């Protein structure tokens, strides 16, 4: 574990800096492309195998987010823009096919179909 702790790490802040998360070990971070403001769906994924430490920097009486963990953790956030009404996350091409047919069948969900691909 010491080896894992030394090989990688990153720090994640909340917007106001009140909570800091330290990741130690194998850390994989998937971020949206930099110039992606017009993309229909953006995903942020932080996967950790190792240790994480959440430090809440607010006053003690306001503490709500501190903690630590050891093991595997996957923290994923999908940001869906204003025009998306229905989002499906599918696990396979077959499921994508089924959803596409369902959308085509309904005739009520609009004619635009956008897709983003997860790294597997």
């Amino acid at each position, binding site marked *: 574990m010491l080896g894992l702790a030394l090989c990688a790490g990153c720090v994640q802040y*909340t*917007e*106001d800096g*009140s*909570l800091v998360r330290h990741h130690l070990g194998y850390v994989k971070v998937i971020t*949206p492309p*930099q*110039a*992606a*403001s017009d993309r229909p769906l*953006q995903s*942020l994924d932080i996967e950790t195998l190792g240790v994480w430490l*959440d430090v809440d920097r607010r006053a003690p009486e*306001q*503490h*709500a*987010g*501190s*903690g*630590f*963990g*050891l*093991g*595997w*953790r*996957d*923290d*994923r*956030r*999908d*940001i*869906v*823009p*204003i*025009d*998306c*009404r*229905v*989002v*499906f*996350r*599918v*696990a*396979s091409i*077959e*499921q994508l*096919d*089924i*959803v596409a*047919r*369902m959308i*085509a*069948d*309904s*005739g*009520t*969900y609009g*004619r635009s179909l956008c897709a983003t691909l997860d790294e597997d």
Partner: protein
Amino acid sequence: MRNLGRGLIAASGALLVSGCNNFEHNDTLLFGTDTKIALDVSASAAQGGTPAVTIGYKRVEAVWMPLYANGQGSVCDATTEQERRGCGSTQDPKYVGEGSGGEQDAYSVFASFGSKIRGEAAGNGDVGIAQFFATGVAAQRLADNPFAALALSVQHPSTGAMLGDALKEAEITRQYELAGVRLTAQQQLAEKLERCLAQEGKLAALSSSNPDEEGVALFADFVKDDLSRENIVRQLVFFAGANAEIKAWADENCS
């Protein structure tokens, strides 16, 4: 990138910080999944700051979404037309959906398929565990589709097996009585189409019969490699919205 920033702000508010009612209105919907297989000791806002110990598997899913119409900070308050892109008028607020009965509801829907499990021993390949979160008028329309629930909950993602199960379900259960009635009519149409589309040039004629109707073109595309009656019925079920056009074409072009 601005959306990402807004989303992260929203995520922080939803997941990590107390006093959420002070947050500015946000135009993005954010869906977060936090999965752990770990020894974890933490105190979350959702638990009122009480420490919790997890040994093993824990999964938390949370949604942060705009629930009220045109609130402070919404794009609908913007001054330029470009910034207001996608926003309805004040008489037609962006975040309010309206059902067929005139009822109003929150606008957003999120639906997801979750885990993928490989079942090698059973020889069944991948198995998907369906998860979805839904609200608003779009959810009502999903619910109106008798096959949506099956498509979202079925265990085997194999299309053929899935549709076969759906059709059997439609025939034998009271819940899908309406679909069963439709199925009878579709079987009669499928019988006609099976004979007709096997003739040279008929499939291409159907595909190009109404280029403005995507459902007809998709239907023709999905049956082109398998013109069996069973497959045609399956596709008719899924392209029910285009059935009227397909039937009209068959009445006109098939004897």
